[in-house]
C-alpha cells in the first residue's frame, strides 16, 4: 500500500468518524452576538416599523455581519462542491479517488459552515423572541394591568359616555330649540373642531405608514401584532431545529460515503498487492497419488 493511498484512507475514515460522532456540535463560545434593547422608542413605533427596526438593528450587529459573511462562504462552498461533482464524473483511476476524497472533505466543510450558520440563526431568533416577549410584557403593562377598582372606573366612564352619546342630540334639541338657550362658544367651536379632527383621523387611518399594522389583511392591535411576531419566531426556531436534523442526516451520509471510499481504497490496494491465495490441500493431492 503506497503512502498516498494510506493518507487518503486515513483521511476518509477520519471524516467519517468525526461526522458520525458529532453530527451537530455545540456552538463556538467565541461567536459574535446581538444585544438589542427594548426601548421606549421601540414600544411607540408602529408595528411594522417595529419589525423593520429590529431587522435593521440585527443587520448592523456583529452577529448580523457574521451571518452575511458565512452566507457568502456557503455560496462559494456550494459552487466548489458543484465543480468537484462535475470533475468527479469525468475522472478515473487515482485522480477519481483523489477527487472523491476532496469532494468528501468539501462536503464536510460545507456541513461545518451550515452548522455555524444554524447556530447563529438560532441565536438571532432566540434573541428576537426574547426581545418580543419583553416588548409584549411592556405593551401589556401599558395598556392593561387594571386592578378591579380601576376596571370599575373605566366601565363607569364607558357607560357614562355611551349614555351621553345616546342622549346628546336629544339634550341639544330640548335645550336649544325648546328652551331657546343660546349656543355657547365651546359648543360652536367644538363642532367645528370635531369635523377637522374627524377628517384628520380618517387621513391618519388611511395613511400607508399607519396601515402597516395590518397583517394578512386584518387590522390588528399592536400587542396582537407582537404576539404574532413571537409565534413566528417560535415557528422559526422549530424550523431551525428541523434543519439541524437534516444537517445531521447529511453528515451521516457523508460519513457512510467516507467509509465506502476507504473500503474501495483498501480493496484496490489489496488486489494490487503480492499476497497469494491460501493453498488448498486438495490441489496437491495429484502430486501424491500419481507417483
Amino acid at each position: 500500500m503506497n503512502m498516498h493511498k494510506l493518507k487518503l484512507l486515513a483521511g476518509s475514515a477520519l471524516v467519517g468518524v468525526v461526522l458520525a460522532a458529532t453530527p451537530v456540535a455545540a456552538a463556538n463560545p467565541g461567536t459574535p452576538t446581538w444585544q438589542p434593547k427594548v426601548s421606549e422608542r421601540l414600544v411607540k413605533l408602529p408595528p411594522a416599523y417595529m419589525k423593520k427596526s429590529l431587522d435593521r438593528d440585527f443587520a448592523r450587529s456583529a452577529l448580523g455581519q457574521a451571518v452575511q459573511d458565512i452566507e457568502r462562504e456557503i455560496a462559494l462552498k456550494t459552487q466548489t462542491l458543484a465543480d468537484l461533482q462535475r470533475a468527479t464524473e469525468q475522472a478515473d483511476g487515482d485522480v477519481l479517488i483523489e477527487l472523491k476524497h476532496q469532494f468528501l472533505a468539501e462536503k464536510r466543510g460545507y456541513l461545518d459552515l451550515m452548522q455555524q450558520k444554524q447556530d447563529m440563526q438560532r441565536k438571532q431568533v432566540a434573541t428576537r423572541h426574547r426581545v418580543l416577549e419583553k416588548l409584549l410584557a411592556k405593551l401589556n403593562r401599558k395598556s392593561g394591568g387594571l386592578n378591579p377598582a380601576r376596571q370599575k372606573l373605566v366601565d363607569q366612564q364607558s357607560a357614562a359616555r355611551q349614555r351621553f352619546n345616546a342622549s346628546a342630540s336629544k339634550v341639544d334639541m330640548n335645550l336649544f330649540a325648546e328652551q331657546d338657550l343660546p349656543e355657547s362658544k365651546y359648543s360652536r367651536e367644538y363642532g367645528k373642531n370635531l369635523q377637522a379632527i374627524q377628517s384628520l383621523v380618517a387621513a391618519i387611518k388611511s395613511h400607508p405608514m399607519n396601515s402597516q399594522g395590518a397583517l394578512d389583511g386584518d387590522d390588528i392591535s399592536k400587542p396582537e401584532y407582537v404576539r404574532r411576531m413571537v409565534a413566528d419566531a417560535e415557528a422559526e426556531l422549530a424550523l431551525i431545529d428541523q434543519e439541524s436534523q437534516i444537517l445531521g442526516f447529511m453528515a451521516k451520509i457523508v460519513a457512510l460515503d467516507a467509509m465506502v471510499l476507504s473500503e474501495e481504497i483498501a480493496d484496490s490496494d489489496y488486489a494490487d498487492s503480492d499476497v497469494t491465495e491460501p493453498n488448498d490441500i486438495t490441489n496437491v493431492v495429484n502430486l501424491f497419488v500419481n507417483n
Partner: protein
Amino acid sequence: MSFHTKLRHLAIAAAAAASIALVSTTPANAGSVENLERERAMVLQAILMPDLGPDERVSKIGASQRRLIDLERIVLRDDSLTGRATPAVRKAFANYDLTFLMHAATEKKMLLVDNWFTAMGLTTQSIMATRTGPR
C-alpha cells in the same frame, strides 16, 4: 445636498412631528372634573340656600345651566380621565345622575332641581314621613 444630509433632515423632521404628536395627546383638561365640581357646587348652593327668593333662585340656577352643560360635556369627552382613579374622578363617575345634572335632567325631561332631589332619594313622601328626634 448630499444623500446623508437629506436623510438626517428627514429623520429630524420625523422626530419633530412625532414629538408634536406626543405633546398633542397629553391631557389638556387636567382640571375638568374640578371645574365641573365648582360649578355644580354653585348650582346646589343656589338650590339649597334658604334665604333666596323663588325668582332669585330660578335666575341663579338658569345662569349656571349653560356653563354646566359645557363643563359636563368637557368632562364626558375628556379622554385623559379614562382610568385615572383619583378620588375626584372616581366620585364623579360613580353616579351619572348626580354628577351630570343637566344632561341627566334633560334626558329624563325633568327640571334640574327635581332630578337632583330624586337622585338624592328626597321625595315629598319621604320628607313628609320624617320625624324629628335626637341623633
